[in-house]
């Protein structure tokens, strides 16, 4: 059996049969603590070391989102079938007054596991609270109807997928199969602050008036964030009402697409890739107006810029999260509303090719 190397952070190892009893004991130790939970948050990883890494992430997430977290580390290649469990709690001082604690249950499973995941691990959900399931990495065959029919909010990061089209197809199947299954892509979430800031720039009447005359649209993203960049492109073009023209060039150093505005003028959209921030620039250029959002490497802020004629406005806005813990925290704060994502996804899949 392969046990994670450093299990100290995972807390106390407990027998599966006595998890509830041990959790009860954990709370009996200190009356001053408040046990809080708004959701069940399951985090699934098939990466070695995933349990330890995700414990750190949960420690951060529970500062803002009280939840019962269930970490699942899976080693499907192991010939031996086993399951090991640990329990711990993450405590924070809420507004400097009260110690608020959230339980964490960690499971390490080896061998064939689909049935055990459902029957053993999910037997420990907090009843009546929704199940948020964060899947890290490629969707494996564990992601089946036996699993996703239990899930209320399914969170994944399409930027991690080698074959995003296949991953999106699996998620679409799950969405169609269960009315209570809502999918959330962290790649889409990663573009959230960019979309907000870009929308804010187009509140300026001059910028808004220049939108139909746009000639160039440039997006720069990190090489491993193609889906994030394409989500931004799909969102801009769909919201602006631009139609894809048949002309398609795949440039050597990025993607090039051609669109037509509602007024019939042509827009060349270029997506370039580099090694800096997940997204580092979005720029729309019209004859008399340039709208630009950019982010310097490692900066926490986006620079918003409109230059029209001889006047320029500049302002800073929060760049949003890069690290997975903050991304997930932001995603959880948005609740279950997902209409814009659902609306943009088909256009993005079309760009993905």
């Amino acid at each position: 059996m392969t046990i994670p190397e450093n299990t100290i952070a995972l807390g106390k190892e407990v027998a599966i049969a006595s998890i509830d009893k041990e959790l009860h004991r954990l709370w009996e130790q200190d009356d001053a603590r408040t046990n809080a939970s708004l959701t069940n948050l399951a985090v699934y990883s098939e990466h070695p070391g995933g349990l330890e890494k995700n414990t750190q992430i949960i420690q951060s997430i529970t500062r803002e989102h009280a939840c019962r977290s269930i970490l699942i580390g899976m080693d499907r290649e192991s010939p031996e079938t086993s399951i090991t469990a640990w329990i711990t709690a993450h405590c924070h001082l809420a507004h400097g007054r009260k110690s608020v604690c959230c339980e964490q249950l960690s499971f390490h499973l080896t061998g064939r596991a689909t049935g055990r995941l459902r029957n053993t691990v999910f037997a420990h959900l907090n009843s009546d609270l929704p199940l948020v399931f964060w899947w890290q990495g490629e969707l494996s065959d564990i992601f089946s109807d036996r699993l996703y029919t239990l899930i209320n909010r399914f969170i994944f990061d399409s930027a991690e997928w080698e074959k995003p089209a296949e991953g999106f197809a699996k998620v679409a199947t799950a969405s169609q199969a269960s009315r209570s299954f809502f999918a959330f892509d962290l790649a889409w979430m990663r573009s959230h602050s960019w979309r907000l800031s870009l929308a804010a720039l187009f509140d300026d009447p001059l910028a808004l008036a220049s939108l139909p005359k746009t000639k160039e649209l440039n997006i720069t993203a990190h090489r491993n964030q193609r889906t994030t960049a394409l989500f931004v492109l799909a969102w801009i073009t769909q919201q602006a009402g631009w139609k894809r023209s048949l002309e398609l060039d795949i440039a050597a150093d990025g993607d090039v697409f051609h669109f037509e505005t509602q007024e019939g003028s042509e827009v060349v959209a270029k997506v370039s890739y580099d090694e800096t921030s997940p997204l580092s620039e979005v720029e729309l250029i019209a004859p008399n107006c340039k709208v630009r959002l950019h982010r310097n490497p490692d900066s926490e802020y986006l620079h918003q810029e409109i230059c029209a004629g001889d006047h320029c406005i500049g302002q800073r806005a929060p760049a949003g999260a890069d690290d997975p813990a903050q991304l997930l925290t932001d995603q959880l704060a948005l609740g279950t509303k997902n209409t814009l994502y659902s609306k943009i996804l088909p256009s993005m899949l079309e760009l993905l090719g």
Partner: protein
Amino acid sequence: MANTNPFREDLVTRSQAAPCTVVIFGATGDLTHRKLVPALYNLAVEGELPPGVKIIGFARREKSDEVFRAGLKEINPKVSRSGHEAKIWDPFEENIHYHQSEFQDVDGYQRLADRLDEIDNGRGGKGNRLFYVASAPEFFDDILENLKKVGLNEAADGCWARVIVEKPFGTDLPSAKHLNEVVSRTFAEKETYRIDHYLGKETAQNIMVLRFANAIFEPLWNNRYIEQVQITCSENLGMEGGRGGYYDKSGAMRDMIQNHLLQLLSLVAMEPPTDLSADGVRDEKVKVIRSLRQWDTPEKVAENVVRAQYTAGTVDGVSRVGYREEDRVDPESMTESYVAVRCMIDTWRWSGVPFYVRMGKQLPKKATEISIHFKSPPSVLFNSDSSGTPGGNVLVIRIQPDEGISLRMMSKIPGANLRLEPVKMDFHYATSFGKGSPEAYERLLLDSMAGDATLFARRDEVEEAWKFVDHIERAWHESDNAPPMAEYTAGSWGPKEADDLLKQDGNEWRRL
């Protein structure tokens, strides 16, 4: 293409704030330094402030832009919810300017108009304007009339000009009507935002969600199941910081009940609105205020209202002087520092249900809450011998501090005997949502930039509330048989007379 920003569609679930210039009248005051500018700064931190928003502070003292900015910068780190970061403050500060003028000087307004035109020209033509009247109330008329004289009340095509008016919105019904007339001669009602910062508080906004998004409460929300409602605003401070001068002319009834607490009452008692539009909600709220039974004779006031002043005592272990010994308070003052009112709402839903509203200074702690007391179950089975045990369920909505909701219910004490005890299900915002709530002013400023007046008081709401309050004030101050002024010791929960008010109905105040 339409004039609407297509990128806003579906992006956020609320109306969108538009770029504008915010002109604050009374810019050297505490409100500007401690609330308004920090709120705008926090909006910038959150990325919620539209790009290009300019702030112009309008006040009488001579000051340069630099001195004005330096004063704001000094206070901001102490009061800002999200701290102070130079990277955000520095570009934010560049958009803050100072405009010196007397409030009565029409030339000062003309110079302001020129300055605003200059800003708009720099932006390529037209711009939105938000005028925030945060000055002392005696200048409201001058400010509004002078804005009109120089045409600042009118917006360019496709733009808007709005006014936010701070409380007190009048001191009685005639003065409120006068002010409303001045405002309505200057700005259309839909461009007028009468601020009541209680409505910007997260828990106040949650009252409608609690009532109308949860199927379990609304069927019980009526006189068949609810015995009484209590709304309490308790303050553990007195007249610190020279506040006595203002307060002694106002009193608890005018300062808190007429606006904040009657607004909370209307949210609790309103019928479901047909939609969540500003007028949809305010139509229902005003019906509640209009349905308040009027205490229009001294006898009715004596029967249903208690006023009191605190005498020397101890709060939080610190000795406090009596109200009449406070700085800037008339030693023979007849202004109440405490008031308790039995409100009756003459509607089908609330007939016979008393709404007890109380507000007091120098009480043991700072807290604002609404408690809904449900009727006790029949005295059979478990309740046949429940003397001494409070039997009814109580739903408490805590407005501040420690925002949250709790529900008291009966439970069996473990053991062989059948004994019951009340237990509490408790929801704390801070525990469940670690992220701090935005300050009320942040939400309200953003809403006014977005043209959403839902959380602002409408003219008829204000006037109806004054009508209710004026009867009581007249009985206290103008009648020959004025109801007496009671006393309570600072640090106590109010006068005995307020306890007696509830005892007449067989009720008692909830212990906070």
